[in-house]
């Protein structure tokens, strides 16, 4: 074939001799997705379907005095109107919903505000009508009386005594394991870790660098807006067609908010147009459900794009202070981090992973970390690809770069000297198993990109490392073996980027058949066993593991059938490379499938797994760029992402994760931010003004996959999806420093910020 799709360099594990794993079959859902036939959330068509719209608050902080919906209800074509008054009172119930604890009262009050609105864009009421135009007309007829309250949107301001309080009774949790603080504030959590004697270690250090950094709110930016369709049947059965990262999680959240049993809720996952963490929480599902109950018809609500920006959970803005000390040789001896992330309107942000990731790439003996989650009058922040890790990597990798400069050391050598490896104890305690940071750094150092010279004015090169966890969590799968030698695989992980195929390939490898002979289906919550969210870089790992277990079950059942054919003991039947054998007898998987119906019927196998423990993925990125000193615009010239990916099941999709994550990180580094006015109104809630990278903004993204097998998966799989977003802001900031001599301590490094930094530097220095 003439095409060069330019595959990644793969540094393989020498023991690897798989047949299916590592190949690049076309994804099973591919044809539907290139012909427009795939059914996404907004493509659902149902008998009698009507459309809904959401009324959002114009105030960033206000008490709701009254809501009058009578005129809207009387509007021709309107079928139902709802407010939080139609929802059960949930008190302060905290539920463990698969991926973590959720305060149900907050979850419900974010779907529709109760007595207060806490941010501009907070949902207040909803309408169902014959079509979306009429529904939106009716929104204008709902009269809401607000009593405006003072607002606070900056994370440091919100921490001060006397700041306007979003939640009057909020007492800070001291984490981990502490009690609650005594006086209310906007600080929902204070995390604290300490190891060794940082004071003495800094005192004794050869060089100490301390810097402060800020980052702004950024959004996941999936192209498909949130959408949900609900039908509340007269028998009390609720069916939800959702665009969600987890159909079981959406079912649990919906049933808890509505206080109906989970058995009364069926969630049918549609194809999902991107999530990146933002489609784990629910927003529309219970609202569409209540509207449907009121009007007796299925109701579909799709958010507007400004609704997505203003009403769903972006990732926090932050303030960070990082201090690192090294000895003469460059060995890091002491680290200190003070981190404040805004959680937006409700408690429960991502500072936890922030404090665990801040020094996770390095072995530092003396360390002290404080991290705060702080409520502000902005949308309730949610997970975004390696939540909390990109912030701290930007800050720490900038400081590490500065240390390398001061030590006159190669920045990769400094990282190699201090890199975490098997046996390194993280600041929060646990000790790393086999990890691949060293291998990844070495691959970066030996890469053509790093070794080739970079010439020209205002050009610079930067490197940075990044870390993220992979979580395990629960997955289930069921398989039906067909008489023609194919296998139908039912699984519950919504497929955002080709996971049907990466899971099927693991089953195919186990059975010794072709990936194309597996027919995967993402099933609804009534049709497959409980499966946690698509997130945490877990699906290829955990649902893949379920598929492997299903494969083992199929093999053991088929050995019994072969034993019947050959009148021997099943224990004497061997299976290898798709062939069952015993003595002189042998039969292929496919041939045996044809005999199943005569030896006891066709086979069904199932598995439900809950792998314990998480593994870790490390990435190292190299970036060349040029700064236009006249305008402050940064152009990326060359970019290479290297990652310890464990076994790359489908290398194209691993490359795709590295490339896509890198470009999201580039957008975060260079342009993306929520801009607010003094009233807390977002000024740029469109995809034109919230400036995500286009094809013209970025070069090709080179990738290197380093296969350091994960000891806790039979094929050595590590999750790869999230780590790639972590290094880019640090790598780019370091490259900007190398290009201009200026260290950018604020994200994004947008043209106005870079330009004014250059201007100020010029004025100050010369």
């Amino acid at each position: 074939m003439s095409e060069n799709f330019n595959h990644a360099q793969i540094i393989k594990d020498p023991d690897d001799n798989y047949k299916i794993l590592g190949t690049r079959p076309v994804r099973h859902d591919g044809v539907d997705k290139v012909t427009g036939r795939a059914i996404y959330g907004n493509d659902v068509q149902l008998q009698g379907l009507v459309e809904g719209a959401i009324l959002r608050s114009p105030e960033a902080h206000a008490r709701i005095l009254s809501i009058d919906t009578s005129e809207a209800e009387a509007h021709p074509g309107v079928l139902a109107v709802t407010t939080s008054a139609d929802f059960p009172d949930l008190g302060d119930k905290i539920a463990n919903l698969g991926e973590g604890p959720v305060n149900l009262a907050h979850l419900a009050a974010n779907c529709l505000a109760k007595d207060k609105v806490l941010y501009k864009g907070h949902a207040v009421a909803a309408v169902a009508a014959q079509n979306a135009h009429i529904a939106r007309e009716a929104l204008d007829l709902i009269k809401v009386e607000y009593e405006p309250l003072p607002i606070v949107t900056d994370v440091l301001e919100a921490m001060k005594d006397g700041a306007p309080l979003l939640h009057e009774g909020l007492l800070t949790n001291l984490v981990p394991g502490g009690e609650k603080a005594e006086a209310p504030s906007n600080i929902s959590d204070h995390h604290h870790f300490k190891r060794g004697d940082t004071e003495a270690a800094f005192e004794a250090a050869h060089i100490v660098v301390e810097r402060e950094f800020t980052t702004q709110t950024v959004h996941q930016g999936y192209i498909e807006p949130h959408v949900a369709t609900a039908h509340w049947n007269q028998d009390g059965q609720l069916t939800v067609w959702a665009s969600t990262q987890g159909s079981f999680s959406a079912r649990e959240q919906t049933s808890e908010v509505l206080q109906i049993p989970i058995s009364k809720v069926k969630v049918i996952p549609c194809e999902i147009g991107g999530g990146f963490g933002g489609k784990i929480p629910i927003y529309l599902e219970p609202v569409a459900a209540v509207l449907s109950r009121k009007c007796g018809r299925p109701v579909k609500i799709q958010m507007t794009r400004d609704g997505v920006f203003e009403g769903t959970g972006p990732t926090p803005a932050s303030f960070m202070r990082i201090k690192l000390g090294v000895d003469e040789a460059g060995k890091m001896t002491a680290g200190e981090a003070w981190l404040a992330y805004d959680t937006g309107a409700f408690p429960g942000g991502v500072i936890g992973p922030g404090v665990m990731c801040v020094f996770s790439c390095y072995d530092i003996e003396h360390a002290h970390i404080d991290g705060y989650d702080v409520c502000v009058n902005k949308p309730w922040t949610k997970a975004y690809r390696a939540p909390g890790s990109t912030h701290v990597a930007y800050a720490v990798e900038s400081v590490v770069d500065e240390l390398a400069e001061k030590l006159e050391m190669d920045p990769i050598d400094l990282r190699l000297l201090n890199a975490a490896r098997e046996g390194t104890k993280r600041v929060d305690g646990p000790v790393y198993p086999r990890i691949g940071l060293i291998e990844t750094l070495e691959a970066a150092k030996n890469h053509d990109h790093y070794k080739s010279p970079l010439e020209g004015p205002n050009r610079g090169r930067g490197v940075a490392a990044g870390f993220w966890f992979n979580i395990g969590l629960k997955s289930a799968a069921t398989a039906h073996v067909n008489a023609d030698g194919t296998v139908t695989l039912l699984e519950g992980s919504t497929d955002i980027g080709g996971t049907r195929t990466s899971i099927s390939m693991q089953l195919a490898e186990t059975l010794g058949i072709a990936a194309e002979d597996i027919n995967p289906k993402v099933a609804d919550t009534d049709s497959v066993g409980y499966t946690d969210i698509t997130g945490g870089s877990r699906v290829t790992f955990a649902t893949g593991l379920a598929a492997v277990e299903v494969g083992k079950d199929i093999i053991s059942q088929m050995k019994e059938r072969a034993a019947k054919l050959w009148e021997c003991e099943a224990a004497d039947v061997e299976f290898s490379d798709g062939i069952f054998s015993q003595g002189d007898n042998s039969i292929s998987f496919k041939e045996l499938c044809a005999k199943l119906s005569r030896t006891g019927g066709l086979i069904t196998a199932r598995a439900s797994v809950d792998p314990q423990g998480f593994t870790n993925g490390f990435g190292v990125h190299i970036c060349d760029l040029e700064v236009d000193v006249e305008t402050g615009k940064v152009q990326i010239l060359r970019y290479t992402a290297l990652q310890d990916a464990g076994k790359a099941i489908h290398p194209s999709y691993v490359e795709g994760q590295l490339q896509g994550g890198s470009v999201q990180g580039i957008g975060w580094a260079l342009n993306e931010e929520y801009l607010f006015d003094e009233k807390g109104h977002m000024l740029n809630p469109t995809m034109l003004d919230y400036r995500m990278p286009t094809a013209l903004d970025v070069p090709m993204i080179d990738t290197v996959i380093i296969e350091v097998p994960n000891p806790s998966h039979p094929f050595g799989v590590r999750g790869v999806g999230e780590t790639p977003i972590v290094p880019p802001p640090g790598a780019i900031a370091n490259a900007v420093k190398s290009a201009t001599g200026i260290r950018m301590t604020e994200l994004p490094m947008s043209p106005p910020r870079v330009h004014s930094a250059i201007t100020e530097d010029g004025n100050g220095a010369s």
Partner: protein
Amino acid sequence: MGKKIHVSTTINGEAVEFLCEARQSLLEIIRDTLTLTGAKEGCNNGNCGACTVLMNGVPVDSCLVLAVEAEGAELETVESIANEEHLHPLQECFLEGAALQCGICTPGFLVSAKALLDGHPEPTEEEIRFELSGNLCRCTGYDKIVRAVQAASERMKEVK
């Protein structure tokens, strides 16, 4: 709201007629009335390109076109790119080159890329990036999309 307006148009080679309100976009009619849901709504204000269709051979954001403007026009959507038996080389290359992840932007990219290759069979990388810069993709980082268009251009040359 007023009376509905009658519109005659051609879509994917078939003559169709529909009734619409003056305020309805072409995207709404294509998706909801004609049930061709391949074109996607990502922003409804012309910024993301997920709703791209060809109108008289020119790519347009169908969310920015009023349905009444389709009177007498020739429209092509993603549904018309493959023929009865075969995928278009662009579709093949998108699949073989893994140029989609979630796939929501894919119909828009395919329509834009087809318009590009129809008028300009051997574009440079820069030209591809420029012509596709009206289509946003949040998953792929564009690398594999650009390469798939390059590969399709090669493949179409071989077929000729």
